[in-house]
Every structure is written in structure tokens, then in C-alpha cells.
């Protein structure tokens, strides 16, 4: 009997506790407040020799990458006994959320790996060190100018490229053969050819095998817009080039691929957007003949599928507006503006991009090195077949490069998510390609303004 009264009392107490619990969401939202105020990066300028320092180095990636990176770091530590490097890594999806919180909390790593438009997001907000301040310890003259420009914006060198990368179509020749379809001629194929070939392969292979995975991504849209209009997503001044009509055309194209059976149904495409590892991709499972992808991921796709996948140039690059092909730094090493040990951090970056010891371990895992001496060194050592394919492709594409890789403006890191979402809306027929094109332009404009 008594317990009814007891639980009725607890009910109030717990109710209040739950309301307080609601505040936890707020607490979460506010925990970024403890920032250290202004930037005072330059004044830790003591000698790099002697004094024992500890720096932190963060990147995204899997365990294989961690193993080779940690080995390289160990060699660095042996060569610089006064420097201890603590390493940390998480997978790509979690990396940038985590970075945002640690930077806001004044607890960011000293050497931060960046990619895409993120260096700009952080650099323009004063979170990254101007590498000119540590030029003494970090030699960037050895690196290809093109790749280096990926880390240069707002008149400042904020990042050092880990290696160069380019975009292409990864092909599974075994599926082409099984479907009785000839490999495309990469010197002349068009976007229409891509659609036709993909549909034919889907038709000639068992259910569940597709000509291509859905090609929609920020990179592909950039190339497509270039082929159609002569400019990519953004203009060099950081403004948006994409128009509602052009983006609408893309959505018409991507939904047309799905309707013809060339690409999988919407549910599968949408399921794959949450499964980002090579093993889970259609290509990695051996269920797609073609998929767009970065050259440095070829090895991972080869391993996942167990097939001798190859890379070819994207369709439409021989059109009137040129190839629009670019090389991009696959990742960039940057240094935290708040670091207490800029020299040590710079030394580590210098080691990672300029030392043959590091190159022997890391190879092309972060793209084909931008340092020519290192590339020559790797070639001399004898390349693994996958690496050889990557090297060859990159040097082949080099001849066709005529597009500048435009780094998206501040806020542009949102565009990939906006594109994926609107593409799903179109594929599930919840909106028309035209409306989605207009929505894309509206939303991205809001994000970058």
C-alpha cells in the first residue's frame, strides 16, 4: 500500500529530474564555450632543440593507415628525441564533428589533417597557423606548386598537401566482360555514353548487379557543371556558379540513370550513403561495373572486391569546355594556430612530406606524393601493382588537366550534404529535378553567405 504513495512522490521528483535532463541538450550545445580567446601562436618561439615537448597529431582513416602512420611517427621520434608525438585517429564521418568540438574547446591537436574546403573553414576563422611563420622548419619548396596551391588561400599558406589525387571512374573489367560490353573509350566518351553503357550492363547481368553506382557527389557535379558551362560549382572568387537549371539537369540525369536501371533503385542508393567503407560499396562488393572515385582509393576498392579494378578518365571531358580535370591535394597537413610548439609541429609535417623514411611506410596512402624526389624514390623502390596503376593514371591525367581546382568558400562544406539529400528527394520522386536544382542553389547560397 505504502508504495503507491512512494512512487507517486518519486514521480514528481523524477519529472523534475527529467526536465533538468532536458537541459543536458543545452549543456551539450554550450560546451564549446571554453575557448582561449585570441590567437597567440607566434610567442612560443623558443628553440626546437633540447627542450622536451609533446605534440598531438590527428588524422582520419582506418587501422591500416594508423599502423603505417604510427610507424613513421616512431622513426620521427627516434630522429628527434626531444619530441614526443601523440597520435589520434577516427573514421572520416566522425572526424570533422570531433575536430570542431576540440578546436572550440581549445584542445585541438597540434598537427591537424584536413581535406576539401575544411582548411578554409578553419583558416579563415583564425584557427590555423600561417605556415610562413615556421618556414625555417618546414620546407615547402620541394612540393609541386599545383598541389601546394590547394593549401593557399586568403593570401596565406595554411596547409601542406599530403599527396595529389584526381578523380576518375573506377571500372571492374570482369563485369564488363560478363555482360559482353566493351570497355569505354576514355578519350571520347560522353555523359550519354556513360548512361547507355551502364544501362546495357545492368540489362545483361543478374539482378542486383548494376552498370554503375549512383554518381551524384559534389566532385562529379563540379566536373559535370564544368563540362556544361565552363566553370565548376564555384568561381575562383568564391561565389556560386551553379544555376538552378544546370543543377536541375544533373538531377534529371541521375534520376534518368535510375529509371533506366543503369543505377540501383533509390532505397539502395540511399542505404549506401550511410555505408562509406569500400567493403560496403557496390564496387567493393563486385555489384557495380563503374563508380566514380578518388585515385588514392583504388587500392582499397581493389582489396575489397578482389578484382583488378582500373581507373579511367571521367566521361565528357573531351567536350568543348575541356576536361575540367584537376589535381587535388587528397589531404592537407595543417598546424593549429594555438599550438604551443609550432616548431616541433612544423618539423613533423616536414618529415611526413619530405622524408624518404616516411614515404617508404606511407607510400600513396594519402595520395601520390607531391614531392618529386619522393616520387622518384618510390618508383626506384619498385611499386606495387595498385600503386603503379595510380601513378600511371595520375601522370596520364596530368596531360589533360585544364581546370583549376577551386577551393569552396567558407560554409561550402555543407554542399555535399545538401546535394545528397536533394538527390534522394528526386530519386524517391518527392520533388522534381527542376525544384531540386533551385533548392540546391538557394540552400548553398545561404550556407556560404
Amino acid at each position, binding site marked *: *500500500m*505504502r*508504495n*503507491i*504513495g*512512494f*512512487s*507517486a*512522490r518519486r*514521480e*514528481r521528483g*523524477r*519529472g523534475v529530474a*527529467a*526536465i533538468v*535532463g*532536458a*537541459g*543536458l*541538450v*543545452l*549543456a*551539450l*550545445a*554550450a*560546451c*564549446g*564555450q571554453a*575557448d582561449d*580567446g585570441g590567437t597567440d601562436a607566434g610567442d612560443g618561439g623558443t628553440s626546437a632543440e633540447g627542450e622536451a615537448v609533446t605534440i598531438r597529431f590527428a588524422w582520419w582513416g582506418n587501422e591500416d593507415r594508423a599502423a603505417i602512420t604510427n610507424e613513421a611517427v616512431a622513426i620521427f621520434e627516434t630522429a628527434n628525441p626531444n619530441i614526443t608525438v601523440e597520435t589520434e585517429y577516427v573514421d572520416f*564521418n566522425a572526424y*570533422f*564533428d570531433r575536430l*570542431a*568540438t576540440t*578546436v*572550440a574547446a581549445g584542445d585541438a591537436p597540434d598537427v591537424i589533417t584536413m581535406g576539401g574546403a575544411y582548411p578554409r*573553414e*578553419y583558416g579563415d*576563422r*583564425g*584557427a590555423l597557423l600561417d605556415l610562413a611563420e615556421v618556414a625555417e622548419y618546414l620546407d615547402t619548396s620541394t612540393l609541386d606548386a599545383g598541389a601546394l596551391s590547394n593549401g593557399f588561400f586568403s593570401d596565406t599558406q595554411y596547409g601542406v598537401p599530403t599527396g595529389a589525387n584526381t578523380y576518375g571512374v573506377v571500372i571492374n573489367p570482369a563485369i564488363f566482360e560478363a555482360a559482353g560490353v566493351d570497355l569505354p573509350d576514355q578519350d571520347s566518351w560522353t555523359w550519354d555514353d556513360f548512361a547507355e553503357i551502364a544501362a546495357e550492363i545492368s540489362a545483361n547481368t543478374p539482378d542486383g548487379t548494376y552498370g554503375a553506382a549512383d554518381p551524384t557527389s559534389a566532385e562529379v557535379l563540379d566536373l559535370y557543371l564544368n563540362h556544361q558551362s565552363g566553370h565548376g560549382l564555384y568561381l575562383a572568387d568564391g561565389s556560386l556558379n551553379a544555376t538552378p537549371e544546370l543543377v536541375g539537369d544533373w538531377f534529371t540525369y541521375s534520376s534518368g540513370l535510375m529509371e533506366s536501371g543503369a543505377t540501383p533503385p*533509390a*532505397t*539502395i542508393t*540511399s*542505404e549506401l*550513403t*550511410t555505408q*562509406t567503407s569500400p567493403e560496403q560499396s557496390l564496387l567493393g562488393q563486385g555489384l557495380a561495373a563503374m563508380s566514380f572515385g578518388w585515385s588514392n582509393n583504388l587500392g582499397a576498392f581493389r582489396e575489397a572486391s578482389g578484382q583488378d579494378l582500373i581507373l579511367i578518365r571521367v566521361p565528357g571531358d573531351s567536350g568543348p569546355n575541356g576536361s575540367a580535370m584537376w589535381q587535388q591535394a587528397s589531404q592537407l597537413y595543417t598546424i593549429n594556430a594555438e599550438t604551443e610548439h609550432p616548431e616541433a609541429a612544423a618539423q613533423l609535417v616536414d618529415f611526413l612530406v619530405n622524408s624518404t623514411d616516411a614515404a617508404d611506410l606511407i607510400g600513396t596512402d594519402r595520395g601520390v606524393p607531391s614531392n618529386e624526389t619522393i616520387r622518384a624514390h618510390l618508383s626506384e623502390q619498385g611499386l606495387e601493382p595498385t600503386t603503379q596503376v595510380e601513378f600511371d593514371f595520375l601522370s596520364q591525367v596530368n596531360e589533360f588537366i585544364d581546370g583549376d581546382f577551386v577551393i569552396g568558400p567558407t*560554409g561550402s*562544406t*555543407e554542399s555535399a*550534404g545538401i546535394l*545528397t*539529400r536533394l538527390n*534522394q528527394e528526386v530519386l*524517391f520522386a*518527392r520533388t522534381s529535378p527542376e525544384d531540386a536544382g533551385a533548392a540546391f542553389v538557394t540552400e548553398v547560397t545561404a*550556407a556560404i553567405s
Partner: protein
Amino acid sequence: MSALRELSTMRRESGRGGPGRRRRGRSAAEKGDNRAAVFFLAPWFIGLFVITAGPLVASLYLSFTDYNLLQDPNWIGWENYVRMFADERLLNSLGVTFTYVLISVPLQLAAALLLAIVLDRGLRGLAIYRSVFYLPSLLGGSVAIAILWRQVFGTNGLVNQFLALLGIEGQGWVSHPDYALGTLMILNVWTFGAPMVIFLAGLRQIPETYYEAAAIDGASRARRFRSITLPLLTPIIFFNLVLQLIGAFQSFTQAFVVSGGTGGPADSTLFYTLYLYQRGFGAFDMGYASAMAWLLLVIIGGMTAVNFFASKFWVFYGD
């Protein structure tokens, strides 16, 4: 009906901070006890002020700024709050969240009550059943279960394999915008264990004598449930309702994991908290996210107030 009266007296007494507390004077031993109590409560107080109250105030301030995580915040007045009205994704996320709360919470409570009534029959091995049914609510909010859920309802998942046995062609349930939210609701209903245990405790407190008296008067089982069980259980139902409602408004983990942090497909599982997280930590829009957090607090507070007000009309305390 003296038993009922006794019941209500008990409730009122215990509602005032426990019986007998005022009777005793303050002895030296009690003061020592107080010091010990303060000592043991200290971690909680520190937690309250440093982890809850401090950030709460800070987020209120930040909600009036353009704070972007990396630079010092600037005061912008009500701008964040005004922006919300034109933010279609925010309005959509409110729609998603309300749909989720208003459907899954009643279903979850109904399932909990039903199971509690079945288990109240004094089955053999009751403790085991209770544990088995309680288990999901311990696991339900966890990342592991959400990942499992994605697999179970995936294109090649358990559900579709089962449907295939019946000759039905399934589809990717979590990756279709028409069904994704539904699978998350099922996940929430499945975690009925916590309210079930509370219902069970409530059922145990209803005196057998009522049922005996009703049975002698010839009341059917349904009638006994309607006229005895339900009214006497309303305080417990109310308690569970308030708690689960607040919890459901704050759902985050399931949608985050199942949709890979996107709230997809096509924003169909974009819970309010998930969108808040995206704005704050993905888009460097922490001022806006803080304002969103305050709107959520107002919404939850409002819903709870409405609940308490409405409770006057249906919750029976035996008074």
C-alpha cells in the same frame, strides 16, 4: 472504501517530504549526518553547476550571438530566433519529432501496460521474463542496437529475409523516406521495459480486496480492468507519460546512427536534436544551435505543463 481513503492519506503524507521528519529535534548526531550528506552530495552539486547550470546560462547567452565555435561571439539580438521561422529544415524536423513522439510514446506505453498486466498474473519464472522484457530498454538508446537495427531493417536484413520466406519482396526499410521513421518508432516501442517495470510495481499495489469485492458483485474481467485497474493506475500512467514524452523529444542516438548522422533519407528521420547537432557541430552555427536548444526547452516545458494541466481531468489520486 476505507482502504482507498487510507491510500490517499498515505499519499498526501509522503508527498510532504516523508512522515515523521518534523517530529524529531536536531541532535548533534543529525548535524553530523547533515555534514556527511553535504559531503556526499557535493559531487552532484558541482556537476549541477558546472555541467548543467553553467552551460545552460552560457547557451542562453550564445543563442543571442553568431558564435561559430572558432571565433568570439558577437551579440546579434533576436536574429537566431527570427531565422527559425523561415528555416524549412527546422520546421520539417519539428514535424518529424512531433510525429515520432505522438505516435511512438502512446504505442510504447500501451505495449508496456499490456505486458505488465500479463506478467502480473504470477507466471512461473516471472523474474526471468521481467529481465528479458526490461533488457531492450537498457540497450535501446545504445549505439550498438542502432547499428543492429540498421542491419535488421536493411535491404538484405533479417526482416526482408523473413518476408522473402513468405514470398513478399521487401525493401530497404531504413533507407526509404516513407518507412525510415516507422522503423525508429518500432525501436522506441521495443524499449518498453522501463515503463513496464513501473506499471508492474503499480499493479502490485492495487489491493486484491477490490477485485474480490468486484468479483462478488459479478463484475466481468473487462469491467474490473476498466473500473479498478485503470483508475488506480492513472498516476503511474501519468508518470510514465511525462517521462517518456520528455525522453522521446530528446531522441538522438537512434536517428543519428541509423541515418549515419544525416537525418536521411531525404530528411525523413531528421529529429530536432539531430538538426541541432548538425547546425552546431557540422555547420559551425553554434549560436543558432543554442537558440534551437532553448526552443526545445520551451516546447518540452510547454508539453509537460499541458500534461500536468490535463492530468487534473483524468488522473485519479483516490482523493
